[in-house]
């Protein structure tokens, strides 16, 4: 017996729709309707030509790609190895990957700032100093990639763990090995295709994380996309809202794509908890 939508259910859903849709609708109105001047789409058409938009977006995308590559290269072999040969390290890895949840981004960046100060303060005569300078190169700040990989660890761990739990890694690898595959071949051709959904899930989550990240980048003085929106907001309110609306639409499209690929089962893993 299917239950009907009772009146209180409609009321709850209606109120929720109101609360969640009004700010979006109002933002769109805000960007196209200038009081006294009528409707104009300038806020949207000017975005591309505004100083810093392209470069900050590109920087964010590059950071995202680098972060995804590093986090997957670190995590996939480790997670597969945990299933095959080193189950006793499992709690260690689980704790290491959960620790970033306990350190809020603002506290993490406070720590990073003081580590970076060690460079000029204490290491200026050692070769390590060069490394400190290199990772802070403003055209591609590696230090942000390092920070984002750490921040992505909990989500990537959960996504990959769910994916690997669903398949029998040991049997797959042993089957591949007895057919003559080398270890890398077994990993790439037998295991990875079977956790494609989990890999995509992890990749999308990391992408969303990096594209929206503000705290670490701002306090370290770099200007990827989110920081650029913030900086533009000071002088061009309409455009910053227009970009905010667009960035929400992009996130929406990304997560819808994720829901389509992942079959919708892993959606609760999307939460930033």
């Amino acid at each position, binding site marked *: 017996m299917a239950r009907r939508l009772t009146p209180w259910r409609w009321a709850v*859903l209606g109120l929720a729709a109101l609360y969640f849709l009004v700010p979006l609708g109002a933002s769109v109105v805000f*960007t196209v309707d200038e009081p006294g001047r009528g409707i104009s789409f300038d806020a949207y058409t000017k975005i591309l030509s505004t100083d810093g938009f392209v470069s900050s977006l590109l920087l964010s995308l590059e950071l995202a790609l680098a972060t995804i590559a590093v986090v997957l290269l670190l995590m996939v072999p480790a997670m597969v190895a945990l299933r095959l040969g*080193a189950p006793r390290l499992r709690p260690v890895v689980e704790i290491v990957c959960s620790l970033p949840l306990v350190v*809020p981004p*603002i506290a993490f960046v406070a720590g990073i700032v003081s580590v970076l100060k060690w460079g000029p303060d204490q290491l200026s005569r050692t070769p390590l100093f060069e490394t400190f300078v290199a990772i802070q190169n403003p055209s591609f700040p590696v230090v942000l990639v390092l920070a984002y990989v750490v921040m992505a660890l909990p989500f990537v761990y959960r996504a990959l763990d769910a994916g690997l739990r669903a398949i029998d890694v040991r*049997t797959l690898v042993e089957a591949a090995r007895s057919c003559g595959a080398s270890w890398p071949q077994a990993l790439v051709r037998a295991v990875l295709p079977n956790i494609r959904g989990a890999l995509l899930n992890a990749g999308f989550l990391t992408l969303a994380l990096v594209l929206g990240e503000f705290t670490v980048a701002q306090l370290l003085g770099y200007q990827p996309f989110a920081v650029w929106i913030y900086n533009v907001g000071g002088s061009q309110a309409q455009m910053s809202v227009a970009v*905010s609306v667009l960035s929400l639409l992009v996130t*929406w499209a990304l997560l819808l794509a994720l829901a389509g690929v992942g079959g919708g089962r892993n959606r609760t893993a999307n939460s*930033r*908890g």
Partner: protein
Amino acid sequence: MTAALPRADVAPVASAKRRRRAPGWLAVVPLLVFAAIAFGLPAFAILDGAFTVGGHYGTTNLTDSLQGPYLTSLLGSVKLSALAALLGALLGLPLAQAVVGSRSRWLREAVLTASGVLANFGGVPLAFAFVATLGNAGVLTVRLGLKDSGWNLYSFWGLVLVYLYFLIPLMVLTITPALDGLRAQWREAARNNGATGVQYWRHVALPVLAPSLLGGLVLLFGSAFAAYATAAAMVGSAVPLVTLQIADALSGNVLVGQENIALALSLDMVLVAGLVMAVYLPLQRRSARWLDA
């Protein structure tokens, strides 16, 4: 469980192969080394700086961080997060129940996908969307004349209103699996024994949901407590929050020693967040046990 079965058949072959290959933990080493550098160093720097006073170790920074404006900001953050989390949980539960109870696949998919998006829609864009709606020159503020009635988005309650925008969806995502786990038979059994709807919720559903509800509440608190971008883009420093205080101390004209106060405040935050996780993880495990059974 499934891994145990085939393992028995191929064990001799596998163990012969295992002897020849590099030990499995080698693949875990890069991850651990990376974490030790990229996470361990900053974590050590927080501890080291928080306890360093003028070149010596001492607890002055920590005691200072619990006094005056720093204490105000810490308490402000706790108050804001607690209120926002409580409201988010109270409002998220009926919404999730309305979705689960409706049995409409379409509605369910739509709301859950939207929640997945909105729970991640924090930060600067969210702040700007609300500024455009309810800020001083916002569309609703101007059209409805809210300013005359004393509305101010850049305030404590303004922040609560904005935080709910990502906290309610987070609650929906957290509590929906638990609501799915409530069996129809339990409700029927309660009804057959003469229970009213209220009695069913009071004596059956809520006790089963309690760990998930508490877990969700704690998760929401942690999420609101750590939020920085939204508040920074919206209120500047009009509302005292510990995240804003840390950012000020880090990026402002840093006086000597002020940076160590920022690190001490960071350590305070880590302790609160650690407490949150210490409460959340056992609760989550407990609710998972109930609902999987």
